[in-house]
């Protein structure tokens, strides 16, 4: 009698362990896919920004024809960004593109008719949204990496992570710290 009880208890515990292993493994796989997805989302949004820039330039050209240098620098930065391959090159080209766009936007401030133009307003909203999306995609990527890394480190899921060789992922760092500082304005 007690023998059979012990037998069933052991069977129960084994089933529980197997179920746990399966769910833990699945959630690790799910997290790894999430990290991959979030990474590709960043690419999607960068691509979206590249597609918007010709639009922006076209709309603005009619109003600020003599700002040739600005247009050229934006188009050049875009061409470089689309051509860049490899993570460090892409990151560098994209941050140069961001810089070119923000410089462009500062110059736009001098053209009130352009700022009231409907098409330009629409493109500006899309561009601003894309910038936000890139930032949020990075944020989501970092969140996903945080969860995955936590799961890999923490007991007991760390055992499964060790068994099936799950590697920790790297966070997306802000590429340029000077980007975040506010430019100084002097009145002299």
């Amino acid at each position, binding site marked *: 009698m007690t023998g059979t009880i012990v037998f069933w208890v052991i069977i129960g515990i084994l089933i529980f362990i197997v179920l746990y292993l399966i769910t833990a493994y699945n959630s690790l796989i799910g997290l790894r896919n*999430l990290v991959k997805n979030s990474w590709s989302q960043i690419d999607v949004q960068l691509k979206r920004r590249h597609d918007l820039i010709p639009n922006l330039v076209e709309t603005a050209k009619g109003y600020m024809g003599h700002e040739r240098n600005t247009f050229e620098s934006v188009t050049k930065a875009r061409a470089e960004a689309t051509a860049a391959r490899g993570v460090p090159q892409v990151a560098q080209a994209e941050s140069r593109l961001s810089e070119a766009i923000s410089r462009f936007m500062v110059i736009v401030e001098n053209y009130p008719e352009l*700022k009231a133009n409907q098409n330009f307003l*629409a493109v500006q*909203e*899309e561009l*601003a*949204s894309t910038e936000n*999306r890139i930032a949020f995609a990075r944020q989501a990527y970092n969140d996903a990496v945080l969860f995955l890394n*936590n799961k890999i480190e923490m007991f007991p899921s760390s055992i499964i992570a060790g068994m099936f060789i799950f590697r920790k992922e790297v966070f997306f760092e802000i590429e340029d710290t000077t980007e975040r500082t506010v430019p100084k304005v002097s009145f002299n």
Partner: protein
Amino acid sequence: MFLQIAAANKRKTVLLVLIMGIVLALLGFFVGELVNLWTGFTSAPQQAENTFKAGYIGFCVALAIWLGLLLTSMLGSDQLFLSLSGAKEVTHDLYPQLYNIIEEMKIASSLPRMPDIYIIDDPAPNAFAVGKSPEDSSICVTAGLLAICSRDELQGVVAHEMGHITNRDVLFMTVAATMLGAVTLIADSFLHSLRYAPIARYRSSSSKPGKGLINVWLIVLGFFLVIFSPILSRILYFTISRSREYLADATSARLTRYPEGLACALEKIMLSPEKLTTALKATAPFYITNPYKQDLEDSLFATHPPLGQRIKILRLMSTGAAFKDYVKAYWAVTHTHKELIAASDMKLGERITIRDPSPPTLQSPPGSRVTAGKAGDIIRAMNQFVFIPCECGMKMKIPPEFARGEIRCPRCNRPHTVKEADQQTMSAILATTSAFSKPAQPQDPLKAKTDALIKGYQEETRIPGTWQSFTCNSCGRIVQVSPAFKLPQFNCTHCGHLFKV
């Protein structure tokens, strides 16, 4: 996968829902027994053995009632609810900014599918989310909210609703609401049927000694439950609702990295005199602020925490936008150490810095007179009105029924042709308003700064009795002023720029 953060918090909600379930089960059991004593459903010998058969039947009936309610509310489609609220679906073409903001938040929360977007024809500012799972959800905002909120504020509100979706609050609140419904239904119908109960029968059947004592206990406990279980479940229900609101606020701050956005939006909602007319009572917990009972804000029976408190908590988050920062602020505001968000969720080794506000070019200028018209324009645009700006500053709004052809401006009599209505985007409509009503001024940032310096100060009007935020003309940052502050002038906390009020 944002779900993971709230996993431990979910357990707490599950526990509260379980307690509600136990209350429901006990109520069913005792009501079954009481009904049995009154009517003599089981025969006398069975009663003598105290088999509690009637109690189990009552328990099963209570369960069946709850499951029936749950099934009907789960099967009742969101579409139905949305159409009852008078919501209309919008696309990217009609309102690009709202669509973009929702897509941004979708990316930030790693939601598997883009929620459907709806706008309600209502000048009262509010928003809500529906959808039982993150795969199938909708976000709905009122035209009034779109009219008064800047981009950052709208983002905060949308992120709050996104928090409801990712935390599966709609599911929790549906389960809790149906339990509350079942408890109320059983207790009420029992009390009503007492009028017709043949009490004499009970007396005749309780002839055996010993059994009487148990029956007395049954009656005492039973009546206690019948009277207090509806109140208890209601308190539980509203506790769940409020804790989910706090969590959604914390989620919003974490997603946007900008708690000030939601705080400003809530402040504007609080100050708005409009009240929502299309809200259904059962769905009150899904709105960003309670569309009902503003006077009951601080009681046990409120679906939402008091607005002022929510705003204060968000504004106190100075160290970062992570969950632990929210909880710290919550503790400071309420002077308690309640476990608002489960400890294991806060242990995540995350340091989240608050971002800067969006550039002012994207912020629509607030101001009550402009916005009342704007809310109307949004509604008209949704109903396929055509907008024709006239050179005299008049903006004609032509309804879709109007025969195409020529129309004369009612003010200056200039002729205009009414073209076939092509869907206009909101940015275009708002642009036509601003292009003619206010001549665009060259806004040189340097000039604006020097102007402010020459002038020396900035004049603002204050609304008494509330928190308010002003944008500093000198450094562009936001300065908050508490209702307790009564002096006619103050300085910007960042750059010392002088404000006069």
